[in-house]
């Protein structure tokens, strides 16, 4: 596979390198989008739409590839799908490749790094330097063939927001529990969060990552006591007893009825399904921003001159139904700046 990819890159350099700067000379632009998850996942669907909207008006042919790592988090699966994806890229001969989220970026973008094919990533939680995509201290001008958009969640800010709400209600919050699934992405996130200065008076407790619905329910029940709050990160990789991946909407539905303590989340779905509040980032917005970078590359701007940054600005979200159910009052300072869900 590596040998084939090397031949493909060499051929691209000899034949297609100059054409990429002027796609019109060889017909429609060939865009290859690699997604870490499955097409049914709402996050993925919004990301793809973001790329297409940013490239609106460009005569383009799209080819999409889903690594499907939410439903199959096994490392072997990822490696196998990555090989299939690289073969598909070799066959397709794209003018540009987009990679969505960490799994796609750490496999596909990393292996295409250093080749003539421009690569734009988005939704990357990890540091791009850790994947070798950019030298340390070079995000403003990466210099190679890879640029992209980072995904930055406002974890600490959300905790402070919760702190503000609780303080306005006179509630004493003692512990803040962090809970997430057992996927690689979530593991890297927890690794990052353990080094964060939270700046809140509560004790911050990292719960073990959960892989099964039973483990998840057990974790929720164990912390469902006054004085506690929970921060729910990713719930996409949790399996049912039959081994299938449960949809996180179902999990949140169960959680909404079970939970008696404030909860913080970062996905709009989770707020809609009953999490109290959160600061949201938009997959669509990140992909759209990455699409704009890709558009500049297709216009002839070298990818190494386009900075790597985080385009998404957080939005305060509040579920008023949950607020009432918990008997909490919201301060005006939160309510007037928030997007309310019922």
């Amino acid at each position, binding site marked *: 596979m590596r040998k084939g990819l090397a031949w493909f890159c060499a051929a691209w350099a000899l034949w297609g390198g100059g054409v990429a700067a002027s796609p019109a000379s060889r017909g429609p632009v060939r865009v290859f989008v690699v997604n870490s998850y499955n097409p049914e996942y709402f996050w993925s669907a919004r990301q793809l739409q973001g790329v297409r909207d940013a490239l609106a008006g460009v005569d383009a042919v799209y080819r999409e590839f889903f690594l499907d790592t939410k439903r199959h988090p096994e490392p072997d699966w990822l490696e196998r799908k990555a090989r299939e994806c690289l073969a598909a890229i070799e066959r397709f001969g794209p003018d540009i490749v987009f990679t969505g989220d960490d799994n796609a970026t750490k496999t596909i973008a990393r292996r295409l790094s250093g080749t003539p094919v421009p690569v734009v990533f988005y939704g990357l939680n990890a540091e791009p330097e850790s994947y070798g995509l950019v030298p340390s201290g070079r995000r403003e001008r990466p210099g190679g063939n890879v640029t992209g958009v980072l995904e930055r969640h406002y974890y*600490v800010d959300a905790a402070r927001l919760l702190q503000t709400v609780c303080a306005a209600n006179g509630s004493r919050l003692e512990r803040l529990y962090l809970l997430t699934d057992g996927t690689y992405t979530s593991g890297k996130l927890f690794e990052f969060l353990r080094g964060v200065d939270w700046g809140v008076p509560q004790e911050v407790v990292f719960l073990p990552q959960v892989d099964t619905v039973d483990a998840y329910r057990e974790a929720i029940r164990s912390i469902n006591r006054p004085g506690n709050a929970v921060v729910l990160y990713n719930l996409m990789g949790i399996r049912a007893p039959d081994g299938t991946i449960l949809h996180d909407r179902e999990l949140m539905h169960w959680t909404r009825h079970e939970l008696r303590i404030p909860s913080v989340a970062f996905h709009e779905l989770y707020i809609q399904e009953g999490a109290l509040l959160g600061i949201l980032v938009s997959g669509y917005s990140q992909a759209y921003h990455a699409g704009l970078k890709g558009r500049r590359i297709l216009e002839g701007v070298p990818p190494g001159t386009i900075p790597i940054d985080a385009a998404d600005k*957080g939005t305060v979200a509040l579920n*008023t139904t949950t607020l009432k159910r918990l008997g909490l009052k*919201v*301060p005006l*300072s*939160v309510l007037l700046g928030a997007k*309310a869900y019922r």
Partner: protein
Amino acid sequence: MNRRSYLGFLAVVAALVAVFGVVGSWFGVRIGARLKRSVQVEQTVLAESVARNVESYVARVSDTVRSVLRLPNLWEGDPKRLVAERYRILTGIYPEIRTAAFVEPDGEIYSTDRSGTFQPMGVHLDDLAEADALREILGRPAGRRSFWVTVSSLFRYVPELDGVTSAPVLLFVQQVRFDGLPAGVVLVPYEIDFLLEHFVRAAGLGAGRDIHFVTQDGLAVYSSVPAWLYRRVPRFVARSGTGAGAFTGEFSVPGDGRALLGAVAPVVMGDALWGVAVTTPLEAVFQTEREVLLPVVVGAAVLVVLLCALVYLFFRRIHAYLRQITVFKAAAEQSGSGITIYDAHGRFVFANRAFGQIMGVEPPDLVGRGLDALQVRFVDRERLEEVQRHLGSGQPWQGELQLDNPDRDGAVFMHSNLTPIREDGRVIGFVGAQRDITDSVRQQQELERYAARLREKTDELEQAKRRLEQDIEARKRAEQEKAGLERKLRRSQTLEAVGQLAGGVAHDFNNLLGSILGCVYVLQLAAPGESPAQDDLQRIRELCKRGGDLTRQLLSVARKGRSRVGPVNLAGVLRSVHLLLRRTVPQGVQVVFDVPDDLPEVRGNPSNLMTAFLNLGLNARDAMPGGGVLRVEARADGGRSVRVTVSDTGTGIPRAIQDRVFEPFFTTKDPGKGTGLGLSSVYTAVQEGGGEISLASSVGEGTVFTVTLPAAEPRPGTAAREGRDHPLTPGEVLVVEDEDPIARMISGVLADHGYRVARVATGIEALERIRDRGDDIGLVCLDLLLPGVGGIDLYRLLQGVAPDLPVLFVTGREDLVGQLDRDLPHLPKPFTAEDLLRAVETVL
């Protein structure tokens, strides 16, 4: 400079540094205090200025908002539409207003974006933390205060922090009344980040100066230092919260870590009291002091230290120079050679003791004086002037000088070397090195005298040697010549003896053999062809022929001095030899013949020469039994001689016998196969014409015989003879022979082969017949020994009457042929019929 003075110098430097340090510190403290006071005054003025400007702006905005919200009601019965209309007016005036909320009297809360359309938020007044205050405003009766301006915060994305957190807002609250009754409360947040940023920038930052807005509870809601944002500033709370006016002092902010100098001025924001803080890090306050005063003090101290160091180094250098001069003078005085130093004008600066001894003067007397002071010491005044000229022109000089030193006997010689001393290319003096070479000069003179005498003796010996060598050479040549002559003499004596022995019997023997052959010929004609006698007769002929060959060889060895020697057409001889060789050599032997036609005639006997070259050719043939190349070449040597080489590629002749091959009867062939007379007869044929023969041979490579024959004097009529053709004659052949058997044999053979033959026995008969039938006679076969008029005399007579008539001499005395004037064809007796026919064809 000794150790004590060095330590003293260090002490002075340390004292100077200490003084500078104390003075600098005192000045630093005083200047620092002044700087702090100056900065704090500036900070206070700035904080007050910003505070007043912000208050003024907030008042203007508040008035505007209140005026808009209190516009007459145009939308009776629909408070939300009324609020929406006023909200749209406000967003047109202030784009910073992005949202608004409306609380209905029943507690339902609505919000709107910039479009002004209110939507229910799903939140009731009871769900708000500020429910009680809003409910109080909502129920407030007419005539009382209905508009409030307060300061709050709004959770939203803050770019400076790259995070979502509370940002400061002015919150305008207006009670809405319809028909005198409360109809709701409108809440309009006005984001004031831009406002605060505007005033901060207008106040001017830089030079380490920062501006912060701090709430009553001590939260920095805006700061030019992002790290300060939303941090607690406890000390500011205590001071600014009292509203007691400006505060100045030193403090630090948690998380910042820097010591700050600051001033705080209170600012009224609606119902709230904030503080405007202007801070400068103490580090920045004293930066000027550090940047200006400290460098000046340190620079001055360093300058003083450097100055001291320079002085120290200067004196140390001077000291080193003086010590070097002392050492130099001591060394110079110890030197056995004279050492002098001159200034640029050639005056003595220094002269050592050795120089004084050479010159016979006291050195101190010379200092400051020129060479003129030593004028009387120089024998050669012109030499002295030459030295002075070099000194004047700055050029180096070296040479020998002869002196007259009254302290010493005889002449004194001195070698002097004067070298200019240059500084930046300019001559500043000279240094001289003088050496007393009197002893060496005298030794040199003695050596030269010895050398002259040695050269004379050597020349004499050379001449004696050359004379001796010449004598030896002459003696060697004389001995070689003597040996050669003796060898020649012995060879001549041998040949002479053999010749005398052989010559006596050869003629009679040949006549006998000739008669026998004539009889044999007649018998062969008479006997039947198949008769057994024919074989015997043929055997008799062969035996006679072998006997004839033997007698000819004997005669050839013996004929020296008796053969007729004259001009010989060598080219013709060699062509005849070539013709014979081609018929006799085997097929494996290649004959190369390279003889030009225009060779000059040589001296010799033609017959002997032909026999000689034929012998050489046959010897060459015999030397190549396996085949090879036989080469006959001839070249004229400028008309003086002709050199003929006969070479082969055969077995060669061993060096040991090369000197003997020309001796008579010397042969290497098996007994009975060689007489040993072949090369001896060759030698004789060459010698009799005054020629020479030599050989060069290597075993296995071949042999080269080189014959050099002297050229003959030119003779008249030769050309005419040489150009004559030899067709078979239509005339008769006149046989002049007194021996009847031979005459018959000749006549018979020729007649048998178609010739017309006439036969006479005497010279007189021959002359008569030639006279009568001259034109009909094509050839004369003439025997040399005739009764009466001899063959030679007859031939001479014929030359007078018929010089063109061909003549073939037939004789048993070949030695007589040499008495003829020229090379004439002859047939030696005995001969066979074939010999006769071949000879006749050759002549014709």
